[in-house]
């Protein structure tokens, strides 16, 4: 045993001192090609020490420390905050934690040109990001959402569907606001959809409109806004428990918040099966551009409700959506590479996004109050559920429920709030389809 160690030791010593003995003439030139393209001359007078220092210097050029910029550090801080918010406050941890870690991944400073970054052609992250850029992930997420969603509260009380439409006012007003701030039409469309409060829809639309590839009629290329739009949409969706309650309290009176709605009727299986088919036909005939989203949504729902395809529905709502969420979250997070993400446009988008959520919530609440003018007796709806018309399933419905409980500890609004909530998903997908058909 000792002999083996001795032999191994001598061999390794030989390997290490080889440069000193001058046996390096051929091998050294190939191994060291510095990042700064300094040619390394293998002169005889070059000592081992200076070459080692040179190697370390060259290695340093590759490290994050050498390439770090203040933007990277800011984004890394934001990523850490995302992770913290997700873990500590439970704000949509399934989204914020992948995105937060993605932000870290995307903002590790690196030397460009070695197929590392998400925006570099051929890098692994770039291949994963393909699903975002081409809008592949969002429909798959919608398939899973469809297989999870129970539309029965909507079928029991179809008029609540209008609340989902009312909240889409946020999309179009934000669109107009973005135009006022000087964004061109496709970019404004992509920004507007943040008001739909639906992450997959926002990514889908921005990947079609503001992808940095499309060329406008006047010859300029649209900016790549997928990252900012997606991050804005997801972070405000996570912040719904913070954004919505003040608006709800501001726009409703105590008396309105106390309104009790009659429990929804039981819905037969037949109706649940008919819903996805009919809703698919009606909505996509109106807005064919939304086929990828609505088609998958209602396909997933039919898998769930048909009663014969439980296996497929089960995969769609568990494994499939989990896989896609992981890929989507990490790549969207990583797409926030500081030099591309930290721009004035992104700041504007974040501002507009916050406003759009406020407008969408306001639209839903006011429309619910407006509907109440025409409804009598126990048909009256609690205007709080209007706020659930922004999609953000099921977070906004939960917020509505919590807010209703604050006013009256025995008023359970969750089932009623789910109706405008799922209608909001349909509504924002239709809205995305309309914007796409106008500007695509």
């Amino acid at each position: 045993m000792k002999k083996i160690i001795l032999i191994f030791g001598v061999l390794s010593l030989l390997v290490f001192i080889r440069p000193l003995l001058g046996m390096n003439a051929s091998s050294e030139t190939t191994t060291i090609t510095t990042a700064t393209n300094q040619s390394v001359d293998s002169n005889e007078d070059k000592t081992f020490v200076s070459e080692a220092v040179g190697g370390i210097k060259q290695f340093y050029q590759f490290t994050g420390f050498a390439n770090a910029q203040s933007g990277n550090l800011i984004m890394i801080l934001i990523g850490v905050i995302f992770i913290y918010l997700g873990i500590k406050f439970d704000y949509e941890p399934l989204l914020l934690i992948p995105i937060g870690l993605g932000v870290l991944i995307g903002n590790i400073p690196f030397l460009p040109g070695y197929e590392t970054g998400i925006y570099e052609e051929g890098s692994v992250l770039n291949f994963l990001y393909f699903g975002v850029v081409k809008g592949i992930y969002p429909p798959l997420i919608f398939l899973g959402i469809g297989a999870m969603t129970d539309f029965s509260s909507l079928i029991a009380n179809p008029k609540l569907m209008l609340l989902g439409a009312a909240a889409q006012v946020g999309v179009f007003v934000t669109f107009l606001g973005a135009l006022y701030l000087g964004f061109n039409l496709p970019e404004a469309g992509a920004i507007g959809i943040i008001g739909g409060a639906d992450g997959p829809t926002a990514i889908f639309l921005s990947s079609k409109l503001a992808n940095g590839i499309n060329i406008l009629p006047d010859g300029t290329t649209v900016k790549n806004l997928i990252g900012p739009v997606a991050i804005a949409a997801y972070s405000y969706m996570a912040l719904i428990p913070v954004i919505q309650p003040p608006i709800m309290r501001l726009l409703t009176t105590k008396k309105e918040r106390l309104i009790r709605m009659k429990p929804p009727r039981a819905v037969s299986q037949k109706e649940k099966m008919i819903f996805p088919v009919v809703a698919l036909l009606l909505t996509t005939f109106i807005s064919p551009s939304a086929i990828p989203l609505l088609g998958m949504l209602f396909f997933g729902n039919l898998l769930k409700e048909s009663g014969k395809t439980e296996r497929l529905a089960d995969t769609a709502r568990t494994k499939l959506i989990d896989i896609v969420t992981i890929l989507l979250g990490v790549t969207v997070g990583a797409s926030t590479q500081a030099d591309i993400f930290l721009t004035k446009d992104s700041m504007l988008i974040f501002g507009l996004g916050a406003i759009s959520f406020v407008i969408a919530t306001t639209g839903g609440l006011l429309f619910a109050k407006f509907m109440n003018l025409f409804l009598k007796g126990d048909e009256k709806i609690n205007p709080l559920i209007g706020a659930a018309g922004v999609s953000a399933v099921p977070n906004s419905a939960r917020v509505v429920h919590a807010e209703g409980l604050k006013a009256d500890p025995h008023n359970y609004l969750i089932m009623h709030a789910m109706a405008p909530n799922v209608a909001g998903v349909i509504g924002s997908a239709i809205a995305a389809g309309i914007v796409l058909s106008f500007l695509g």
Partner: protein
Amino acid sequence: MTHIYLLTNDLSEGYVILVTGLTIVFGGLLILTLFFKYALPIMLYIYKIISKGRDKKIKEISPKLNEQFTGEIAAAISAAIHLHLNEQHDNENAILTIKQARKMYSPWSSKIYGVYNKR
């Protein structure tokens, strides 16, 4: 994809999209609402008449017979069943050891099967 450039000015086109977009979203969901409020019950009623006598099951769970049985009750019962079936964690073995799992024989993964049946 259709390109509808109605006006040259971005902002005025924005207004057009604002108005038409909102109208279409409302229109679409209004049609859905109307369908599920009026057309679907009629369709189901017609179906019931056509398949009279054969479709006993639907009749039994018809909400008309059970006005008391609301969605909330259904939700409570199903939640209870769900909890009962999925949250039975009482008597679990606390001893954790690594057990040798015996693999079931399967011709799909059998080496000898692959050796003898070369086709």
